[in-house]
């Protein structure tokens, strides 16, 4: 948990939460966990869609104070 990489993409439009996640995933090691923060309504659907398509794993997903938290593990 303490090594989890925080990707704070709250209130961002461009490149936006999913692209920020993709950029940070590329720099992370396999096995790393990234926690994405997003206030974009579409993130709840488009991030799991990409994660599942590329073959990573969603560890956790919850909303806190109108901020969506999605924790993704880099599998490959």
């Amino acid at each position, binding site marked *: 948990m303490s090594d989890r990489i925080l*990707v*704070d*993409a709250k*209130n*961002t*439009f*461009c*490149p*936006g*939460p*999913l*692209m*920020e996640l*993709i*950029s940070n995933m*590329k*720099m992370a090691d396999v096995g790393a966990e990234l926690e994405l923060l997003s206030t974009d309504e*579409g993130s709840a659907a*488009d991030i799991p*869609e*990409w994660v599942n*398509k*590329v*073959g990573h794993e969603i560890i956790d997903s919850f909303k806190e104070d109108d901020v969506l938290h999605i924790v993704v593990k880099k599998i490959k």
Partner: protein
Amino acid sequence: MHILVVGGGMGGTILANNLARRLSGEIEQGSAKITMLSASDKHMYQPGLLYVAVGKMSTSELYRDQKSLLEPSIDFKVDPVEKFDLDNNSVTTKSGKKVSYDILCIATGSRGNAAGIPGLAENACQFYTESDALAMYKKLQKFEGGKVVVATGVPHKCPMSPLEITFFLIDYFKKRGIWDKVDLHYTYPIGRVHSLEPVANWAAPEFDKLGVTYETLFNMKEVVPGKVISEEDSSAEFDLLVTVPPHKGMQVIEDNELGKGGFIPTDKKKLNMEGRENVFVLGDTTNLPISKAGSTAHFEAEALGENIAALVQQGEPVREYDGKVFCFIEAGDGKATYAMFNYDNPPNPQAPTSGLHWFKTAYNRMYWASARGII
């Protein structure tokens, strides 16, 4: 008070000029000094590379002498930084000089990293350097038709460039009279054709009208002769592949371990390097989740210029950067639009017009006044 600006691109140049004007009294009295260290004596207008790649601009229009763009009071040296010693407020340059500072501003920019995608450099066109843009134009001139694929790496600077190069390619093929022989296929890393939803909502129907096919959730993994393969286990065959490569920060940032991927952790409003009150970062060099674009650097430079001058004159900053970005979008067929947004207000682009295209064309020349801080 010695203010050191590292990097002579758009952000560094506008910032240095802004500070030189605001602190002209202090500079004249000798209580303030501004130094700029850069790797080049030339300043490149990077947005022009898109035009060079399709034969709409000559390379001579891309450059001005850096010194000619700077206020005379700025001490400009072509002697890039090799080592940062932030704990001791100094840098060491390529020539071995140690330069101490009171305030450091890092604006070293970003670079295409084709090496990050195996096979990309050998098999694809790019347009993020002069040589790559010229090579792309030469390839286009020899192209007689076939499957053209556009693919985009993440992250990258100039967020509009995937769409702009696509619309410019259509214009080019139409002008050559070979558009009916071209099958154009656009790919994009996320689940729509652009990161900005309103822009994607405008562009996708335009692609439909023009017969451009598209595939989303496509992140380049590898390029082999004739095929680009994605992380998502998809692929697209091509006769010509045009790419926006993934980007990294500059090598010196990575070598000095200032930030992963060469992007420095930066406060989104104050623009100081995280953990460093006297080190500021702007432009592509930051790790901020905002557009890596010239306008971002421009507006950050304006906010920082005001703040650093206030620090010198009053002892504290006076404003915050609000995340403002303004990007033109060349839409082909002699038309353009733009997207303007900040941290709190999303973009709301309007339909492209010829007036905006001509404004962008004029801006390609007015940029030099912008770099000098005049407009």
